[in-house]
């Protein structure tokens, strides 16, 4: 096993599994074109071969050098202090929730709309980032929300998701009505 750790093996397995799935799926569009005989699958397959070679190269490097970085590299990105820090269950839970919350927010955009989902999202992120003072949470939420409304709705008239479910759709409609009334008032 050399200097390989479980993480190195998992990393390689993920790359190879991805390559396998992409290769198998490439048969869905494996056809020879009239204009371009190699067809649409040739380029992705060549890239998959390179992916497999690089994954094995990476495995070989770790087999030889363990978890070390390569000498002379530029723009190194790994943060060993954070990676090696002691983690409590609470810390891991917080990280997991921060990763999950944006997806919940994105999925709620269609039914709830931006105007109703955004304040809840702001509160959620601030709390998960460790802020506990209620007035700070409330104040910053209102400030960010108002700034976004002024910038994107009032100034740019951007078409943001309005929601499909009542009462969220009604809330969005009310915002749009207020915006139209405000622009009409400015026009007068």
């Amino acid at each position: 096993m050399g200097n390989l750790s479980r993480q190195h093996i998992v990393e390689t397995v993920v790359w190879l599994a991805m390559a396998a799935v992409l290769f198998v799926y490439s048969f869905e569009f494996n056809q020879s074109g009239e204009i371009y005989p190699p067809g649409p699958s040739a380029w992705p397959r060549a890239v998959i071969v390179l992916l497999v070679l690089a994954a094995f190269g990476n495995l070989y490097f770790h087999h030889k050098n363990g978890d070390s970085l390569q000498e002379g590299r530029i723009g190194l990105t790994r943060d060993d202090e954070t990676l090696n820090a002691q983690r409590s269950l609470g810390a891991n839970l917080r990280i997991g929730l921060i990763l999950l919350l944006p997806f919940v927010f994105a999925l709620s955009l269609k039914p709830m709309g931006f105007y109703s989902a955004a304040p809840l999202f702001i509160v959620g992120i601030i709390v998960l980032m460790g802020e506990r003072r209620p007035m700070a949470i409330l104040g910053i939420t209102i400030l960010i929300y108002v700034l976004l409304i002024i910038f994107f709705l009032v100034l740019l008239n951007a078409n943001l998701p309005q929601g499909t479910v009542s009462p969220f759709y009604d809330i969005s409609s009310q915002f749009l009505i207020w915006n139209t009334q405000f622009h009409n008032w400015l026009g007068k």
Partner: protein
Amino acid sequence: MIDNFLAGTQALFSDPFTIFIFICAVIGGMLFGAIPGVSMLTLAAIILPFTGALEPAQAIMLFAVIYCTGTYGGAITAILFNIPGSAENAPTAFDGYPMTQNGQAGKAVGSAVLCSAIGGVASALVMMAATEPIANWAISNIAAPEIFALVFFGLAVASSVGGNTIWKGWLSVILGVMIGTVGQDPIDGVNRYTFDFVDLAAGIAFVPVILGLFAVSEVFTQAEKKAVGTYNAPKFSLNFPKFAELWREKVAVLRSILIGFFCGILPGIGATLAAFMSYGEAVRWSKNKEEFGRGKLEGVISSETANNAATGAAMIPLLALGLPGGALTAIMVAAFEMHDLEPGPLVFWNSPDLIWVVFAAMFWANLSILFIGLLETKTILYLLKIPFQFLAPLILLLATVGAYLTRGLVLDVLVMFTAGIVGFLLRRSGYSMAGLVLGVILGKVGEGNYARGMQMMHFEPFSVSTGYFGRLAPIDLAFTTIYLPIGLLLLIGGLITLAASVWAALRARPSQMS
């Protein structure tokens, strides 16, 4: 040329409404470039529908100015928050962000202001003088085989930037190229890796991917640091660089201008490769290579000079050939079409006034970076005082709006957050975000040009008559003309870079840093 430039300047500054548009574009480009989570592309995409009501010269000038000032504005977020405004600012973050962490944010931003202005003004001047002859040369000598060779060379260079090992650099680039294959293939239009999602037929939109990989993954990374208690707030400083410090980097500035202009002029490549190549060359020529990536001023200077030097050059393929060099110049094509104009050689004949208003506006916009940029920078540096838990939701929401407005699809928001998680996981494992992004951009360009190039060479790329060996381009020197196979030389350069990096990886020794 001077007469045309003066006429363009007069046309620009004689109409109050045109002046108003110019000022709005200068400030808007800088602000959108500087606000974390949005970019000049967001601004350009939002205002595009409204520019139909403007005069053609005003509309095209508006986007050209946003391009110049937005390219600089993206450096501010790259330096302060490790969030490049766009891909061309990615190498700026390599040394700019460590400088911020070392309490040298003012010095990094100050040099970015100065070098962006120098690079942009130099590029604008060369652009005005050389547009026609260079365009004529490129039209007859740069085609798909040469562009593919340049993409290959660019990807080989990109793999050596970022990533803790050469293999991780390559895996990042390859993953980017793979992402670029999603959607219709560039020759036959066959759907690939769409998994029956109709919205994926047009491919994965670039803006959500870049927002996810840089803005969202940065928020996740900082959130993890806060959760495990290793978060360090960036230090605040306003110590701008001294003239002597910048004068010491004059060679790097000159080299970056040349690289920026060379890369910017080639269709489909633009400022991104310019910034990466310039950064890579700065490292290659440096005696203290290990200092790069840890807060070296030369890294910021090289990247920022080159990407702004590419803005003027990028207008040449757009105006002379009708080929956009990047996302913003692609939006400009749409602006041309909205006014029933077609970018290409005919514009020089049909609308010379428009061309010179745009050229003059780009010159003055780059010069204004020097003055407005310094004023704005002082204001933006105060953003560092805001605690990250309050900045994080703002960044995520701005990114959400930016991703959504790209095509009006919630799918793009999901793609952005997915890219954010992928970026977060890859970054903590030592992969290169910049390499990944460059892979996405250049992969698409590379495939199309590879296929077209192979057709042009009758699928015999190494044939003496029709292949790379036979594709000789004339280069006029002082007393003679030499003929060089540009594409072949670029391919050989890419192969040497690739072979050298693989050799280095096989003989690699562990770094003292670990």
